[in-house]
């Protein structure tokens, strides 16, 4: 009744192929953007920014990146943590070598450097597939972490191997460093998320995205109809790594401020991003957002309920948190194997027909 296309006429090809064909969807999207850009900065505080919103935004970028590679192009990767480390260390070297460079440019160049590294580690994908490729990317993960631990140049020969983000400004507002405000950090990440999600959405429904999906669905058939596997797989690795590199740069510079490669970008981070896209939905932009939200926000929520409201001992709460998140993941995957984005698609279908399901 409420949610349907009747009366929503399309007068041009552009209108017909827009991302949100329904007026209600479109308005929902505009309202969401307005709230995110104008509403949230008015109420945000340090806790909400550092514990909830900034990690959510950064993990969304990483999940978008891995979703391009795994969800759209079908190349399983366990190297996300290592690629995030490349982004983080690239941004650190750029920040300390070129103090006058704008932080936005630094983040984007860090993404580009990660893209180059990603292409190198993507080369094996031309010969090996599936689980074997996963093992090859696992090698990337371990090699990169080892590299940033071993070669002192990457951390400017500091005594401990920790890297710390110095202060950098954008339009006169500090976005990195200890005195950056919650609003500035949040808006900086938000701009990048909106920009990159827009790029990802439009890439995946254009020629490049279609060639990725052709390779994913059946690579031999794709090759026969003229999709070049070399170019397609390597563009997927490059663009995916660009996203993950940007996420790594933000993770270090804006979110944590100081990292150490083994702890911050270990193998568990690679699995975390993979779980995000599996739970959220493979091959779905919305799924990347939902997956990141699920795995970043749920632990914080559970902790606040158990410790903050119920006053349980913190160790008990931490254990129950692990158990219940594992249980919810299993439950979701059993009930909806295509991820939470599929739940949303089904809901939309039902809403369109409602209240006359037949």
């Amino acid at each position, binding site marked *: 009744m409420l949610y349907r296309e009747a009366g929503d006429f399309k007068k041009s090809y552009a209108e017909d192929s827009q991302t949100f064909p329904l007026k209600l969807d479109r308005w929902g999207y505009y309202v969401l953007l307005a709230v995110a850009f104008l509403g949230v900065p008015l109420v945000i505080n340090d806790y909400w920014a*550092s*514990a909830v919103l900034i990690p959510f935004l950064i993990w969304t970028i990483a999940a978008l990146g891995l979703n391009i590679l795994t969800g759209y192009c079908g190349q399983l990767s366990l190297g996300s943590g290592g690629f995030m480390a490349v982004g983080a260390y690239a941004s650190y070297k750029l920040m300390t070598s070129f103090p006058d460079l704008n932080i936005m440019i630094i983040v984007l160049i860090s993404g580009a450097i990660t893209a180059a590294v990603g292409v190198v580690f993507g080369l094996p994908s031309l010969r090996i597939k599936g689980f074997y490729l996963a093992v090859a990317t696992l090698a990337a993960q371990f090699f990169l972490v080892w590299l940033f631990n071993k070669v002192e140049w990457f951390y400017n020969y500091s*005594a401990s191997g*920790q890297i710390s983000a*110095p202060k950098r400004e954008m339009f006169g507002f500090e976005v990195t460093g200890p*005195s950056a405000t919650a609003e500035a950090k949040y808006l900086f990440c938000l701009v990048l998320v909106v920009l990159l999600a827009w790029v990802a959405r439009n890439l995946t429904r254009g020629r490049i995205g279609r060639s990725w999906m052709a390779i994913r669905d059946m690579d031999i058939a794709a090759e026969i109809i003229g999709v070049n596997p070399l170019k397609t797989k390597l563009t997927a690795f490059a663009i995916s790594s660009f996203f993950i590199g940007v996420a790594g740069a933000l993770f270090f510079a804006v979110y*944590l401020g100081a990292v150490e490669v083994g702890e911050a970008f270990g193998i568990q981070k690679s699995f975390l991003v993979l779980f995000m896209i599996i739970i959220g939905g493979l091959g779905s932009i919305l799924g990347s957002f939902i997956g990141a939200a699920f795995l970043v926000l749920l632990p914080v929520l559970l902790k606040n309920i158990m410790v903050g409201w*119920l006053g349980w001992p*913190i160790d008990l709460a931490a254990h129950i948190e692990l158990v219940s998140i594992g249980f919810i993941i299993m439950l979701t995957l059993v009930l909806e194997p295509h991820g939470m984005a599929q739940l949303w698609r089904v809901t939309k279908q039902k809403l369109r027909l409602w209240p006359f399901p037949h």
Partner: protein
Amino acid sequence: MKFNKLAAIAVAAVTAASPVLADLVFPSLSYRTGPYAANGIPFADGFADYFTLLNERDGGIGGVMTTVIECETGYSTEKGVECYEATKGEGALMYQPLSTGITYQLIPKTAADGIPMLTSGYGRTSAANGDVFSHTFNFPANYWNGASIAVSHILDLNDGNIEDKTIALVYHNSAYGKEPIRTLEALAEKHGFNLTLLPVDAPGQEQKSQWLQIRRERPDYVLMWGWGVMNPVAIQEAANIRYPMENFIGIWWSGSENDVAPSGDGAHGYKALAFHAAGRDFPLFDDLQELVIDAGLAAGDGEHVGTVLYNRGMYGAVMAAEAVKVAQEMHGVAQINASMMRDGLENLVISDEIMAAIGLQGFGPNFEVSCENHGGPGLGRIQQWDASTESWSMITDFIEPDMDIIQPLIDADSAAYAAENGIESQCN
């Protein structure tokens, strides 16, 4: 009906749990879960129990009750950030994160928020330079002191000549484990010994190749910078290759009962550094037993009391409480805030009389903190494990570190930090 009951319990829990703002609030970023829990639990218990004792026995400090807010980090830096942001608004006076990774992150944040942080025996060593690190304190000793004390001990054993001896460093391959390398390199140059570096990747359950190398090369001494599960594994491996235990020296984080007990008799003679005593032969423990543990108010089950890490957590709380007293006296108010707490820490003096008044005479070193020196004198002792009695015994008096080597390193590292972050001198 059932729901109402639950709601009532929830409300009661909230009112009980939320701290009253008119307290002295000490957040405890603890880790009772995860791979380092075995070490995190006794430390957090010791920290909490001492404040409970102060509340029960003295009615707080200077008439103001104390509150410890615990927040679980699991030794993860991300959760550390969340815990910091969640607790800093509650009137937090001081942080003790017990993690070098979280410390690095909090150094700029605490300075920006004006909350002091005490990292006794861990964290960023160059924070000893209070001229640059205004809100970070790492008295009474730090990693570089530890490295120098260990080498001094080896010098004593060899009548001052260790030329051409080989010392191997087995270290946790992280910020924490890498800290002593620079000092050891400088000391190797000065005393002419050879240094072999053997990194162990976290968490450290797999050390076969490192110990194979030690077995092959037979270094004269092995130093260890380990934490968590890495320690017992290393001691077990050393026992397996029959490495002479008296030549195996751990930093103070590698010298707790948890680390040596699993190896049984094999660990007999293992040495570790210490900046405070182990055991419970101090008058304070009688009060603690009576008013906290027997009264059922202990944070844990009471079985860790007197162990190395419990005592270290308690020592952290003791120094915090003494700094509160200094701050209360300086500013003439009982309800101090974080910036007064910083002044208290910076003017802290620990003497025999003060330690005797607490009931801990001879527990730790005497020291004075100043604006320039946030690190104290860096004194440490060597303790040795006796597997038959299952206890640590001190085998040396307090040893002075070689500040001729360490001070230039501290100055250089803190100057680099000051330049990178545009920090101006704060003393004078």
